[in-house]
């Protein structure tokens, strides 16, 4: 069919006629491509005519100027700039015949208004502007505003400018300020997640000066509560949970240390670039001591592994691919504000994100392994271990003997790693293992012993040391894997495709994790050198072709030494059985005179190391290889396409200022690129997140999706203004402070008739789940404000059933700790937190719902928790000296605690009347008057406390 033939008879004629009838009209009504045209193209056209080449129909792409204006095979052009009537696009979308009309298959037609916009856009030249999120940040000019008197800072000018821009004809009045006590309550919850104290409210009400407000903000930013509040915001992005969901909801070991890390880092105001880099590659950065640890940075890398996981997958590689996809989704949403995970099966339909980009990140994740690491609590430990090893090495050199390579019948057995280099390519945690080729070991009593050369050994320095070591990843090519090892009370693991959950449930992976038993009693534990070598053989039949690595773990008082990793087709291979020690140790006698000072150096360092406080165990990331991952065709983990160079994302290369060296997994390179001051994604998402949390609405309303299906910012200028501050080194606290001291933050909550392209004053906001519970604890006077430590076990109601249910329930009141310290078990989420929209820990959640459902009212009316806290508050107000205080004074204190203000006269009267009624209802004729009065007081104040918890003002912020 001919496109041209339709041009004369389509409905668009009217609109294009209008548009072209007066070029002045076109100019006056200039179309904003980003706002008016691109969204229509995205929603209606890109699925078949967008970035995804595989899905493209008729060879037409409409997401680029070149594509849209190119001559197609049929000889026509979809868009002819400046000539709407010659543009086939318009003819097709406006076609009267539904068979011919685009989009096809009975989908709803493009509306006349949309067609008119497209027509005008084409008439005015069809200029494509790059999607805002993928464009570099630009320093905006601070606008001049008519209401400059209202402004306190440039942020206010950007804000006001958006309002003035949409109200050209009428002067829009800048919003009025909120009253002092509401501002105090708002700021206190925003910064600390806790209500202000009565003293704070009264002090600020007495002098609501800017200086006083700034001082309050500074105090709050410096408080421990700040990290507990803003740390929880970050945990939402990290899909933080402490269990793995699936069948048995196994624990994620020491997950709480990640929560601890986040709170600590935010309280210390670790620069955002460093904070994010630590998440990606904290194990590879310069150490940063904190939290009583020699290096807190690796704790952040647990972030890679906080997703759910299943045990005993039948298809282990698919399982790995699924877990990686979960992690990539979190990387994409939280650090880029983009749905990169969309590109798992194909190039992104709407955004310029390629499948290759997804696999560039997947490759990073696949070369990263999950380790239960050891982190020093004593900063001297690493140096001492190095000193001791250096001394042993010096002594070894003095022996003057070099290790010999060993023979192996290569026709039977393939050597994967014989550790002749002392396992230099292995990664280690703790200080038990080293990469030394020393021929000497230190005995427990401090004497020297001859050691096997070129093994990887956890007893060379001190059998008491703990640690673990992992081989580089290698492909399994034969059925049997043999490890030549010796030792006792330690573990050997073979890890296939980074599958580690066999440590909780073996099934298909039974035997992949083995404890090395002590040999018979004739071997003294103190003389590791006398132990016999043994061959541990693993049947890898089901895993040939998969990638594996070997892990040695010495964490329970034993030791382990590995000599070689080999594979063969036969379960018993003679070459393996007869593989002998290199003979050096047996041939040599320790007669060479060694310098006593060297030995003493080694012993001194070792003994000092023994005296150090022990390391902690924590989940950390580690590089395991340096492979590029191929694109998985249509998302299949068995059907590969081109290699996707890891960490090299097409959406980054244009933006980053310099190429970064690629090493190992590529995590470090990725961290450098993402945190580069010229890369826009991180800075924009962070700036937007800060604004969202303080104003209830982001500058871009979809904080985790800056792509074309997300909402465009109401002010890209303001967003870049803030983002550039972060890119240039402002810390989170500095940015938060600056935003909070604006006039905009002070404005009264309310709504306006302004369109969504303008800044709106703050809405009346419902407190989030944590703040509601924490506020009840504060009001009842029972908050345990202590910070940190393992989480408080979740309270289990009888409705919380299923496999993996913990043996014991946690306390109803969560031990009165702040909500951020309550355990998050994926299969047993706290119903109260759920009701008030704590997000499911499935992926990044940058904007919480603020729902309104009866479950919330029912929880406040009837839950055990709320009744308990009301009773505690009532008890406090009716015991001891409180009983001498007048009802009015007690009522006043309750109002301050619940609503951050004094009661009005009528409220005080109503509360008094309520207390009277309640006292009357609790009269017990069987007890004496004093007992009665006490019980009545307690019951009456408990009832009043409960009513205040249920009052809307308690859960809403103005």
């Amino acid at each position, binding site marked *: 069919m001919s496109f041209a033939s339709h041009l004369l008879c389509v409905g668009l004629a009217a609109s294009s006629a209008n548009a072209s009838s007066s070029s002045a009209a076109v100019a006056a009504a200039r179309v904003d491509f980003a706002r008016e045209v691109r969204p229509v193209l995205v929603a209606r056209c890109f699925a078949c005519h967008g970035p995804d080449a595989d899905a493209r129909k008729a060879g037409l792409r409409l997401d680029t100027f070149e594509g849209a204006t190119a001559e197609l095979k049929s000889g026509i052009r979809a868009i002819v700039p400046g000539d709407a009537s010659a543009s086939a696009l318009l003819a097709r979308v406006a076609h009267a015949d539904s068979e011919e009309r685009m989009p096809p298959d009975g989908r709803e037609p493009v509306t006349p208004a949309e067609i008119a916009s497209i027509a005008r856009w084409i008439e005015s030249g069809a200029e494509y502007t790059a999607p805002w999120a993928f464009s570099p940040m630009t320093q905006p000019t601070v606008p001049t505003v008519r209401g400059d008197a209202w402004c306190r800072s440039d942020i206010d000018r950007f804000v006001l400018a958006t309002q003035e821009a949409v109200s050209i004809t009428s002067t829009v009045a800048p919003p009025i300020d909120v009253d002092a006590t509401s501002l105090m309550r708002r700021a206190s919850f925003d910064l600390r997640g806790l209500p202000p104290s009565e003293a704070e409210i009264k002090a600020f009400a007495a002098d609501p000066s800017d200086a006083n407000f700034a001082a309050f903000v500074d105090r709050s930013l410096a408080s421990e509560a700040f990290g507990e509040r803003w740390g929880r915001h970050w945990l939402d992005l990290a899909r933080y949970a402490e269990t793995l969901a699936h069948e048995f909801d196994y624990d994620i070991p020491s997950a709480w240390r990640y929560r601890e890390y986040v709170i600590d880092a935010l309280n210390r105001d670790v620069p955002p670039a460093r904070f994010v880099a630590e998440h990606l590659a904290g194990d590879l950065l310069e150490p940063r001591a904190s939290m009583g640890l020699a290096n807190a940075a690796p704790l952040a890398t647990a972030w890679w592994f906080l997703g759910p996981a299943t045990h005993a997958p039948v298809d282990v590689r698919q399982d790995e691919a699924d877990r990686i996809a979960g992690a990539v989704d979190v990387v994409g949403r939280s650090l880029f504000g983009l749905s990169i995970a969309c590109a798992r099966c194909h190039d992104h339909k709407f955004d310029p994100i390629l499948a290759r980009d997804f696999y560039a990140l997947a490759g990073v994740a696949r070369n990263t392994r999950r380790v239960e690491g050891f982190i020093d609590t004593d900063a001297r430990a690493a140096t001492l271990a190095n000193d001791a090893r250096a001394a042993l090495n010096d002594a070894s050199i003095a022996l003057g003997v070099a290790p010999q390579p060993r023979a192996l019948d290569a026709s039977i057995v393939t050597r994967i790693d014989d550790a002749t280099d002392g396992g230099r390519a292995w990664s280690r945690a703790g200080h038990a293992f080293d990469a030394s080729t020393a021929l000497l070991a230190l005995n427990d009593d401090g004497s020297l012993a001859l050691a096997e050369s070129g093994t990887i050994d956890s007893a060379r320095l001190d059998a008491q040391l703990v640690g673990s070591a992992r081989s580089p990843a290698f492909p399994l090519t034969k059925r049997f894997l043999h490890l030549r090892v010796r030792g006792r009370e330690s573990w050997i693991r073979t890890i296939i495709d980074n599958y580690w959950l066999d440590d909780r449930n073996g099934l298909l992976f039974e035997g992949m994790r083995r404890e090395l038993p002590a040999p018979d009693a004739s071997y003294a534990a103190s003389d590791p050198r006398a132990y016999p070598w043994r061959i541990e053989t693993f049947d890898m039949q089901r895993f040939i072709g998969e990638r594996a690595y070997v892990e040695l773990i010495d964490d329970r008082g034993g030791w382990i030494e590995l000599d070689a990793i080999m594979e063969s087709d036969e379960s018993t291979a003679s070459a393996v059985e007869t593989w002998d020690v290199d003979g050096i140790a047996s041939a040599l006698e320790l007669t060479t005179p060694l310098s006593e000072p060297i030995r003493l150096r080694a012993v001194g360092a070792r003994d000092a190391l023994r005296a150090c406080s022990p390391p902690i165990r924590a989940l950390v990331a580690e590089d395991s290889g340096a492979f590029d991952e191929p694109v998985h065709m249509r998302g299949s983990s068995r059907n590969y396409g081109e290699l996707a160079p890891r960490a090299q994302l097409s959406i980054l290369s244009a933006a980053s200022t310099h190429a970064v060296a690629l090493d190992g997994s590529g995590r470090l390179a990725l961290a450098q690129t993402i945190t580069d001051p010229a890369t826009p994604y991180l800075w924009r998402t962070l700036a937007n997140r800060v604004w969202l949390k303080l104003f209830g609405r982001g500058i871009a309303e979809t904080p985790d999706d800056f792509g074309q299906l997300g909402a465009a910012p109401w002010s890209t200028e303001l967003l870049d203004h803030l983002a550039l501050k972060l890119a240039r080194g402002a810390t989170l606290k500095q940015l938060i402070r600056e935003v909070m001291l604006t006039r905009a933050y002070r404005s009264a909550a309310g709504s306006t008739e302004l369109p969504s392209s303008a800044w709106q004053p703050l809405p009346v906001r419902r407190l989030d789940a944590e703040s509601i519970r924490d506020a009840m604890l504060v009001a009842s006077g029972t908050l345990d404000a202590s910070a940190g430590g393992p989480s408080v076990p979740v309270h289990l109601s009888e409705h919380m059933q299923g496999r993996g249910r913990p043996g014991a329930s946690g306390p109803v009141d969560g031990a009165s700790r702040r909500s951020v310290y309550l355990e998050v078990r994926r299969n047993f989420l706290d119903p109260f937190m759920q009701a008030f929209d704590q997000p499911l820990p499935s992926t990044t959640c940058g904007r919480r719902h603020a729902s309104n459902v009866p479950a919330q*009212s029912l929880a406040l009316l009837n839950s055990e928790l709320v009744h308990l806290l009301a009773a505690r508050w009532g008890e406090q107000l009716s015991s001891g000296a409180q009983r001498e205080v007048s009802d009015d004074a007690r009522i006043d204190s309750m109002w301050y605690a619940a609503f951050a203000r004094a009661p009005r006269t009528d409220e005080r009267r109503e509360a008094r009347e309520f207390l009277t009624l309640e006292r009357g209802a609790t009269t017990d004729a069987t007890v004496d008057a004093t007992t009665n009065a006490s019980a009545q007081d307690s019951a009456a104040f408990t009832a009043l406390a409960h009513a205040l918890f249920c009052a809307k003002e308690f859960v809403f912020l103005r």
Partner: protein
Amino acid sequence: MTNEPRHHCGQFRDLACSRRDMLRSVSGGFGMLAFAGLFGRNALASPIDADRALASTHFKPRARSVIFLYMDGGPAQMDTFDPKPRLVDYDGKPFPLVAAPTQFNNNGNTLASPWKFRNYGQSGLPVSDLFPHVGAMADELCVVRSMTSDFSEHTNANYFLHTGSGIPGRPSMGAWTSYGLGSENDNLPGFVVVEGGLIPPGGLDCFSAGFVPARHQGSIMRPTGEAITDATPRESLEAQSRKRQLIARLDSQFAHDARAEAVDSAIKNHELAYRMQSAVPELASLDGESAETKALYGFDAPDPNTRTYARECCLARRLVERGVRFVEVTCPRTIGDRWDQHSDLKAGHEANARAVDQPIAALLTDLKRRGLLESTLVVWSAEFGRTPFAQGTDGRDHNPFGFSMWMAGGGVRGGIAIGATDEFGYRAVDKPYKIHDLHATMFHLLGVDHRRLTFRSGGRDMRLTDVHGELIVDAIA
């Protein structure tokens, strides 16, 4: 295990302004329509019927509600609805086909079914002796013998069955149904899980709202004890009423000062909560059921698990009677630990069947005589089936390659069997269907085009059926 892609991004919807966007703008733009919780009706009773995504169904619905009888653990198809006489020839001998990896990798010899099959009703549909009561309803059943799943592990397979995706965090089919069609009862949720003692492996994520508004998540109801969390007052009605008056006065002043729709809605929602405190006990009480009905379900059956499941099924009927869209019924905790018989198949399957057989048949009978069966789609399925060869000597391992499920009522053809497995009951060979096809068919019967019920999450328009879903056309009457 198939090698096909399983994690696609969803269908791309053609509406620039989704209904959700419209609702969002109507309600003030601040997450008013994002809801956590138990009950299906948004207290913000917007004039545009805010609690359903679809203004109307896409075509004439055949069913109004779904009752999903979830057979936790995976009953063996060749022991229930898919007779395989050929297995008898090979019983105790090596399994003649190539076996794919199984979860326990402890594959034994071929294992014939310990149960006989009988032909029932006018249709003559064969049903094994495990299900004499259900067999008697054979003319209502539409058995699909060629179901497949993508997963051999319970949890992946459960998430897949419930949400169309093998990972946790996606909306359950009940949540999708509630999201699409809402509840017909202001005081009750759109999606209820009647929980008999076994939350499926994978936990509450099987009933999750995922990314659709949280009010669509499955509300857990128990057939005994407190039916729903926090629905029972902890104080006298008088005491609650005194508080209620004080709260109302405080709230009215606050609402006046705040002038925010969010506050007004929260107040309405608080009032609704009071009403629910009485609606729930009325619903949950089975005392008013006639003696004949109680006997029909098996309230007085000798096996306590039968009694539990009888109450569950009766409750399910009461729920659909009251307009709840989607009811999932989970299994009671039997001696054999659900249908997952890795060993001792005979005793385990018999215990499980005894628990559910009579109540299921009673549910079908009861729905039918009340005229509810034609508007209620009853679905009986597990996450996968079991192997025709033994695990060890007397168990069966997981088998996602071919298994049986059935539907009844709500617009399906009764008395037929669709598709087939091979002669050993191992793999679906004729008309193989996927879980997405079940979902598509279920939606179709509810009047919903599965391709057109979407929710935008993380930049994608997500669907229960992902990019898949073919109708099981033979099943549709």
